[in-house]
């Protein structure tokens, strides 16, 4: 199973096994990684699953949909590498992915 590393804003790391086909958000929530609220459960309705994708992984994690882009436009502390983690599907290619979490999701 691909491994994903989540790094909290305080530097704490969580390495998690992420099932292929699920989302980067789901893998975090299932392993109780703090800092991803995911209130809407992945419906792209809450923008509380914001992560920063490590720049070297940006091409592999794919393009943002226009829905995701607009949602992120209103999130706090958005950077060029911001994504909604519920919109990134885990694939074998993402083994080793590193994402950082914002200070707060609100």
């Amino acid at each position, binding site marked *: 199973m691909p491994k994903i590393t989540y790094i909290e804003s305080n530097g704490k790391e969580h390495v998690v096994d992420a099932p292929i086909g699920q989302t980067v958000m789901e893998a975090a929530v*299932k392993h*109780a990684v703090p800092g991803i609220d995911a209130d809407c*459960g992945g*419906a*792209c*309705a*809450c923008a509380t699953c914001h992560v920063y994708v490590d720049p070297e992984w940006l091409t592999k994690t794919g393009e943002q949909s226009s829905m995701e882009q607009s*949602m992120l*436009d209103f999130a706090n502390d958005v950077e060029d590498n911001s994504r909604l983690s519920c919109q990134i599907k885990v694939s074998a290619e993402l083994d080793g992915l590193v994402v950082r979490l914002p200070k707060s999701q609100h």
Partner: protein
Amino acid sequence: MSTDEIKRIIIIGAGQAGGETAQRLRQGGFEGEITLIGEEPAAPYQRPPLSKAYLKGDLDIDRLMLRPASVYAEERIALLTKTRAVWIDRANRKVRVEGGRELPYDALVLATGAKPRKLPLVGADLDGVYLFRTAADVDRVRERFVSGAKLIVIGAGYIGLEVAAVARQCGLDVTVVETAVRPLARVTSPEVAGFFLDEHTRQGVRFVLGGQPALIKGSDRVTGVALTDGAELPADLVIAGIGVTPDIAIAEQCGLTVSNGIATDRQCRTSDPNIFAIGDCAARPMVHYDGRMARLESVHNAVEGAKIVAAVLTEGKEHTEEAPWFWSDQYDLKLQIAGLFQGYDRIAFRGVMADRAFAAFYYKGDKLIAVDAVNRPAEYLGAKMLIQTNRTLPPSVIEDMSRPMKELVASAR
């Protein structure tokens, strides 16, 4: 009771609100005992996908779970599934569960949710007539939910229309019977309802509006629905989506104040200071709407209640409430709603319905009170932010499509 003296917290109802509360109590640093009592066989799960991806068969039950079942033990949360709480002894602060076991508490959280209304009709118990609230309900539906089957959905609320949309996508023949003259009558404006009516009609859903079901026909399994005007509609399966009633049985038993749900204050405290109530079963003053009491049925409201109660019981930072929000997915349309539209006297639009991407902004006087945004996430989030911060924008400004929503929001006061 000061929070130092709270060593044992019991949560009744292991749905979205109950599950989130347990987890947020731990995240907030509560070290004492947490017992989460739930009647359903599964650990807390999310209901929204039930009428969307789960019905379609795109998700299995594990992916509905709020947390994997193993996390509860790891976090020392005693999760009692298939267990119904039947009695609350407020004087001695005990909860009795079916079978007679009594559990003491220092603080109690009621998160009992809501029960779907049964069709008040002869034949409602026939095989092939379904309610739509739990994963088990949907699992039962699935055996009949096959291409070509004739489905009658009774009730054109969000759940009914979502089921109709999935059914069309799965090749069923769909008729929606609604007693009101339009769909979504309780939850949105005639304009937005008209848009969804057109969309479903285009997708091949038939509507019987102003239709009064009189009787469900069939001897052992359903064969059709008879209406009061004499019409008869054939059916292989019938799904009732005629709303829910808050589950207040246990609150009434122990004498808490109840009116359209268990009444609470802003901190979700009931008329007994040691008992809180959250989620679909409870009504509380709406901070963004002059403190008017409302009982909401939404994921946001369930999560909000969990955050409020966890903050109170762990003496954490007081939770700042978001404006109410909700969503509904039908076909490729994502409807996102912020605020409460009841009492509006004016609508402004951004975008046009023909593009299948527009937002309806609801005003009461000068104040923006709600938005229905279809495939328009910026309008949804922008309006939500305005409502949350008690700001508004005149309709003429909102309607100016030459300026992006984000810029408008920044200019608002």
